[in-house]
């Protein structure tokens, strides 16, 4: 492990993906909660022409210049989407689709243009399509941190406003909050999150870095602060996992490996998260159904007992109880009732209520037969 961390490239890549994972996880939480998950997809594609134009205009291949171009193009993309949605005939999904594909197409056109320039080569620019984490150098990582840290600070400073906007924009407006400006801030932060991910995971997969950690974190908590923190953690974990995966075997592209790790976290969260997870709900469903069956069997036994001159401990054959409860197999139900001390097994396969069981059945019947209020 220590020799592993001494490798310069690996250390840089790890630093870069941690910065990216933490920031995109935190920002992605807001995107997911505001149902704007796919905005990130559109904006990351929209950044491509900005990168190429920045290169064409400045002639420089410095990461800072290219990312500035990306940020400007991404911002123009959000403006285009807002302008389109304002008219009543273009819906948001179409607007996102158009910005995504047209900006990206323009980016490709510019890219072929740039590649024909003398000495341009394509190596510098097409890494932004799928990302090449291995090309990260110290200055890139510092730049990513320099974008991510102040942005996170802004997130903390405007926490209350962002939270209100996310959960009740109408109320925020009624309170006199400058909703448009807060929204613009959030979109700007989203664009920045995309920009710092472009070099590592590329325009095509960047949206997953926003959505997956947030969707995983959402399963574990109902509090925004915890969700943002967990999403940042999930982003960092998947970043580190992806880097380890891609460095441990040859020809494992880092970007897709990171996305795969993030998706595994999502699957695990969907399955195992307490309260919300699929496994949890299945167990709860089974428990509730068993409880319902128990009450039903007790109720039926009480009904039958009362036909026998009200002798509550009158034994009933299991087949009779079964025929009254066609929904479920009564054998396991009777056994768990016996364990609870509510029924007693009599000679043969017949059963009777205990006094506790009769009491419970009576109180349930009272509840059942109470007229609805």
């Amino acid at each position, binding site marked *: 492990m220590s020799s592993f961390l001494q490798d310069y490239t690996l250390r840089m890549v790890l630093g870069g993906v941690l910065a990216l994972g933490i920031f995109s996880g935190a920002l992605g939480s807001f995107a997911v909660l505001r149902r704007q998950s796919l905005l990130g997809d559109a904006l990351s594609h929209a950044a491509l022409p900005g990168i190429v134009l920045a290169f064409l205009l400045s002639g420089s291949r410095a990461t800072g210049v290219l990312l500035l171009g990306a940020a400007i193009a991404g911002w123009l993309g959000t403006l285009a989407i807002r302008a389109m949605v304002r008219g009543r005939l273009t819906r948001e999904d179409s607007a996102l689709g158009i910005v995504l*594909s047209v900006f990206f197409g323009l980016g490709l056109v510019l890219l072929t*243009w740039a590649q024909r320039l003398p000495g341009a080569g394509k190596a510098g620019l097409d890494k932004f399509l799928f990302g090449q984490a291995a090309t990260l150098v110290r200055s890139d990582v510092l730049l990513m941190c320099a974008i991510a840290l102040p942005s996170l600070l802004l997130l903390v400073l405007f926490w209350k406003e962002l939270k209100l906007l996310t959960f009740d924009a109408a109320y925020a407006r009624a309170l006199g909050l400058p909703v448009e400006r807060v929204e613009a801030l959030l979109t700007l932060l989203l664009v920045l999150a995309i920009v710092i991910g472009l070099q590592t995971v590329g325009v095509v997969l960047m949206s997953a870095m926003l*959505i997956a950690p947030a*969707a995983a974190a*959402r399963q574990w908590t109902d509090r925004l602060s915890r969700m943002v923190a967990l999403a940042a953690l999930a982003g960092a974990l998947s970043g580190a996992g992806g880097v380890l995966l891609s460095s441990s075997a040859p020809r494992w592209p880092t970007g897709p490996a990171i996305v795969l790790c993030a998706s595994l976290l999502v699957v695990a969260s*969907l399955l195992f998260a307490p309260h919300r997870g*699929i496994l949890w709900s299945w167990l709860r469903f089974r428990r509730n159904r068993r409880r319902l069956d128990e009450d039903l069997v007790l109720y039926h036994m009480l009904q039958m007992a009362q036909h026998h001159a009200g002798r509550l401990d009158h034994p009933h054959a299991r087949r009779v109880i079964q025929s009254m409860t066609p929904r479920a197999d009564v054998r396991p139900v009777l056994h768990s009732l016996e364990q609870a001390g509510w029924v007693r097994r009599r000679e043969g396969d017949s059963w009777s209520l205990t006094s506790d069981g009769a009491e419970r059945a009576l109180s349930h019947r009272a509840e059942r037969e109470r007229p609805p209020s």
Partner: protein
Amino acid sequence: MQAHLEILAIAAVIAVACALPGTLLVLRRMALLSDAISHSILLGIVLAFFAQGGLDSPLVILGAAASGVLMVVLVEFLVRSRLVREDAAIGLVFPVLFSIAVILVSRHTGSIHLDVDAVLLGELAFAPFDRLEAGGADLGPRGLWIGTGILALNLAFLGLCYKELKLSTFDAGLAAVLGFMPGVLHYGLLSLVSLTCVGAFDAVGSILVVALMIAPPATARLLTERLGLLFALSAALAVAGALLGYGLAVFLDLNIAGSMATVLGLFFALTWLAAPREGWLARRALRRAQTRRLAGDLLVIHLLQHEGSPTERREARVIHMQEHLGWSPEFARGVLADALEEGHVTRMDGLLHLKPEGRQRAEKALVHI
């Protein structure tokens, strides 16, 4: 020349094949599913390459299309579980399938002849070299046959289910009540979208399929409200964009798919700006005309209020309109010019007087207000 013509034919066929299901996607607000599907089919294509070494047989094309449908099924499963909302579900599923595909391609670059760039970005220029031959006879480029086949399927689906699609698009509830099985139509449509994406991928690449599917219908939507016309216009716009984009790409030596998408984007931008009724310019002109009209009403009402009253000498001065109604000088001049021209007011000694027509207008406007 022959090669150019063949490429143009392929581009036109693919454009129409994309625009038809794309129109339904746009109307059903599922435009972004085309993006998700076009990414997801990469996995199917890669697996098909492993299985068959190419996309030659129709079975393999169907298999690749199945991965697009798989994406839709997974998204629906996630949405049903109510753990993730639809937008996030889409954004979760397609990157996974896409990532797996990219990893598979990278791990097996030696044994698999498939360039991710080409799948994403398309290589229409090479399409004429891939010929379909039967018994030694050259039947033309394979891409043209595949495109035509998919176009025919799309046309058949639309033709057979036009009524059902129309109803389920505009009133899904009623369609379900009438027994039109919106679910079957939904999956039928998305299966065709998948198939179209597979067919289009080597022409325009999987990302720009989205441009062909979404931009033409969204543009046409600004021009018409009739469904039949919408399909026709979308197809025409897609063909025009594809052909013009190809011409531009050849002329300037640019990426073909990118140039097509750019032209389609320009079409949309121009239409958004200048469409006769729904364009930005038209809507701005309408808003201005309405504002002027309302201001004219205010002017005659104002004059009516003060007509014959002691304050009339002050209130009916031309200059007073600006102050009292808070209008800018130009705006006030414009409103006044309208009112004079329409014969609703006259000007005497620097004062405005209502004519009978103006009085009528004021009374009518008062009732409306």
